[in-house]
């Protein structure tokens, strides 16, 4: 059964086909991200809540409040219709419908996650791969939503450059949100717990200046919104649509994304490294 003498040389790894031993976070993440993109394209039904529910909220909220806030008499709309004010909330809602964590649970349960863990890739790329796909998916969905809003007269005041910054901001936020959901998935290894956790994070989207600017909220809501980091992401996105480039708002929005991203990545890498 055991005849090692004749063909042992087949085990020698050909040096021209195998890269050096060091793992490359970016390369590995892109490889796993490419797979996740393929997966998303093959399950288009998973995009349904990402697009439909935020648009539903946009239509309903604008329908309910647009007569209270007519564009001509409402200074905070800066000449646009109420839909322009609501659009950032819908974009952020869309960014929070990522399926990355649920796919991860599926992989953990099916054993493929262990297969990936048994490869010599950087542990961080196990986390970043799917987040990269979430980033791309949110860019595409965000562009489609802004394009649709354009048909209803909503304009991005900051122009093409601002439109791109808006998409990047929302897509980075989608990575953060999905990253935290992945953390729950890694911890719980349960689809039910992961879905439940998204319901815990969900209210944060509504403890924001969702319907009116922060200064016009009731005092308790204003305090809650000020303490809520999502507020600053929403205000940064809103500033790009209504005002143009507002340095302070953008700085705050991107700072929140950067801090949340760093925290999420640190926790995720720790979790994957200690995953038994």
């Amino acid at each position, binding site marked *: 059964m055991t*005849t090692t003498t004749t063909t042992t040389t087949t085990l020698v790894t050909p040096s021209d086909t195998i890269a050096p*031993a060091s793992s490359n976070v970016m390369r590995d993440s892109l490889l*796993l991200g490419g*797979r996740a993109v393929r997966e998303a394209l093959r399950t288009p039904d998973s995009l349904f809540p990402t697009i439909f529910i935020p648009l539903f909220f946009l239509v309903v909220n604008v329908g309910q409040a647009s007569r209270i806030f007519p564009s001509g008499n409402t200074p905070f709309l800066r000449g646009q219709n109420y839909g322009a004010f609501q659009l950032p909330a819908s974009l952020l809602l869309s960014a929070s419908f990522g399926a990355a964590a649920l796919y991860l649970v599926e992989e953990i349960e099916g054993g*493929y996650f262990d297969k990936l863990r048994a490869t010599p890739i950087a542990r961080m790329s196990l986390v970043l791969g799917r987040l990269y796909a979430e980033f791309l998916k949110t860019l595409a969905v965000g562009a489609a939503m802004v394009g649709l809003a354009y048909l209803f007269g909503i304009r991005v005041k900051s122009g093409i450059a601002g439109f791109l910054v808006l998409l990047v901001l929302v897509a980075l936020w989608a990575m953060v949100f999905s990253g935290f959901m992945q953390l729950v998935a890694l911890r719980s290894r349960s689809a039910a717990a992961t879905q439940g956790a998204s319901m815990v994070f969900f209210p944060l989207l509504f403890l924001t200046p969702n319907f009116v600017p922060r200064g016009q909220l009731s005092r308790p809501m204003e305090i809650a919104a000020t303490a809520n980091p999502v507020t600053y992401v929403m205000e940064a996105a809103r500033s790009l649509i209504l005002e143009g480039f507002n340095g302070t708002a953008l700085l705050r929005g991107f700072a929140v994304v950067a801090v949340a991203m760093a925290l999420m990545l640190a926790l995720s890498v720790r979790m994957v490294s200690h995953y038994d």
Partner: protein
Amino acid sequence: MSAIVATGVQKTYGTGTDAVVAVRGVDLDVAAGEVFGFLGPNGAGKSTTVRMLTTLMTLTAGTAKVAGVDVAADPHGARRKIGVALQEAGLDSRQTGRELLTLQSRLFGMTKPAAAARADELLTLVELDDAADRRVKGYSGGMKRRLDLASALVHRPEVLFLDEPTTGLDPASRLTVWEEVRRINRLGTTVFLTTQYLEEADQLCDRLAIIDEGRVVLEGTPTSLKQDLQARKGLAAEPTLDDVFLEATGRTRERSAGDVKEI
């Protein structure tokens, strides 16, 4: 030369009063080029031991070297030298067989053309050429198992770990997997195999160890273990590996009898 050396390997889940000891100090020495069987009843610690040896689980105590690399000190180095096919065929059902093998090859550092060539080579090896561009979710259990086996071989590992590779397969698929294991071993790869099927161990393994309640209770070649039992019990006919297994973990039958009595 040893392909696997484990010394006092232990695994404890939880702490304090909730602590469960799954593996209680396993020592193993598997020679390069062997097919080594690791047998035991359900919950004996087989899979936990495999997961520790393949870097998927931390060791609570002890040391383990696979292909000369300490799995705790240099897990990355160990991963480059081992192939793993776990109990459930760990596959991504939304990818095709070819995509899965190509990705796996690339994760082991291969260039794109090399990965594509290696995927082709392995698809032929496990006779999945015809199904290569179909999504894995449409594969039968046997096809999935063969693809899983192929994915464990992309980087030409020195040591291949197979955790119950034929569980749930029909007899024909089981024979196909046996053939693959023999072929892989003929190419020089050391195979560490866990199984609940004693016939499988008898057919495939050069040597085997039986683990029970987290401890190795018996070790040797299938022939020597059977002869030893025959001599000890003074049996007229040579016992089967089933007899060896039941004798080594004999309390299983006693316990079953005990359960009946309790009823």
